[in-house]
């Protein structure tokens, strides 16, 4: 990652322009070509520095629901259960964590009722209890990372 990549990441974790030629606007700001901006974002996505590029949606604003959930997965089934859980399109993120509850994931559903059904289906598919941790209150979210 060079200074250009760092500047891109620090300045555009949000606020990507809604204009006809947004990459051109960035190019003018950074004093480079539109092509350079596009190919850099492409390569940062390809090498895994970026996980995504585009809009981040909040399903809860249009009637959906995010639910944090966890499973106590036996060590010898970890890989298999990861495959099952990740196979659900409703599972948006999944992390291995160092606790008895060693798998933590976020279920994102367009319709709130679907979350409960997904939990039941996950229990059926894995044969393991799924602990649900729906949020009761949310405080300030700060998701910017400086590089």
């Amino acid at each position, binding site marked *: 990652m060079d200074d250009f990549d760092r500047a*891109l*990441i620090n300045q*555009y*974790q*949000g*606020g*990507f322009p*809604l*204009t*006809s*030629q947004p*990459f*051109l606007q960035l190019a003018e700001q950074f004093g480079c070509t539109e092509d350079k901006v*596009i190919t850099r974002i*492409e390569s*940062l996505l390809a090498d*895994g*520095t*970026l*996980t*995504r*590029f*585009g*809009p*981040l*949606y*909040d399903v*809860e*604003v*249009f009637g959906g629901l995010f639910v*944090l959930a966890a499973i106590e997965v036996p060590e010898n089934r970890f890989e298999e259960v*990861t495959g099952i859980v*990740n196979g659900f399109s*409703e*599972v*948006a*993120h*999944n*992390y*291995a*964590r*160092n606790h008895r*509850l060693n*798998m*933590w*994931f976020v279920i*994102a559903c*367009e319709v709130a009722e679907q979350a409960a059904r997904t939990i039941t289906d996950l229990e059926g598919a894995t044969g393991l209890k799924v602990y*649900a*941790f*729906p*949020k*009761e*209150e*949310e*405080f*300030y979210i*700060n998701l910017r*990372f400086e*590089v």
Partner: protein
Amino acid sequence: MSQIELTELQRRLVIETQSGLPLVAKPYAQIAATLGCSEEQVLADMSLLLEKGVIRRIGLVPNHYRLGYTHNAMTVWDVDDAHASALGEKVGALAFVSHCYLRPRHLPLWPYRLFAMVHGKTEQDVEQQIACIHELLGDHCRQADRLYSSKILKKTGMRLKPKFVPLPVEKN
């Protein structure tokens, strides 16, 4: 939170862009061509969705592990219910806390109610952040734990499924 109902076109716009924007000079025009509407319509709808909070932000989403934030902990706290909201406000306002929530307990396995995500480049950084939260909670905290993430197993974000409904005929 005020909720909004998406129009059919907005819903198709979400589906079209939820995995990312096309990396071409005119990304919104390309989306418009796929959806069969004008570029102006796409820009107007995306501005509206951003304003309403349906879109939280538009931009680059870095893999924080790759940026050197290799130590990521979900810190969890068993706090007095009576003070939980006020404590959540304080912890959530700390600059190093990315998310902060109150969630239900699952006794006896899980006595914790307040969740705060912290991120650092070293374990020492994170432990300092945890000590800072501990101090802030003081006597209101009965017990606490920290769950470091050892691996990202999946990180795709939300995915709407296309509904099998006929698309509306575009009126000219």
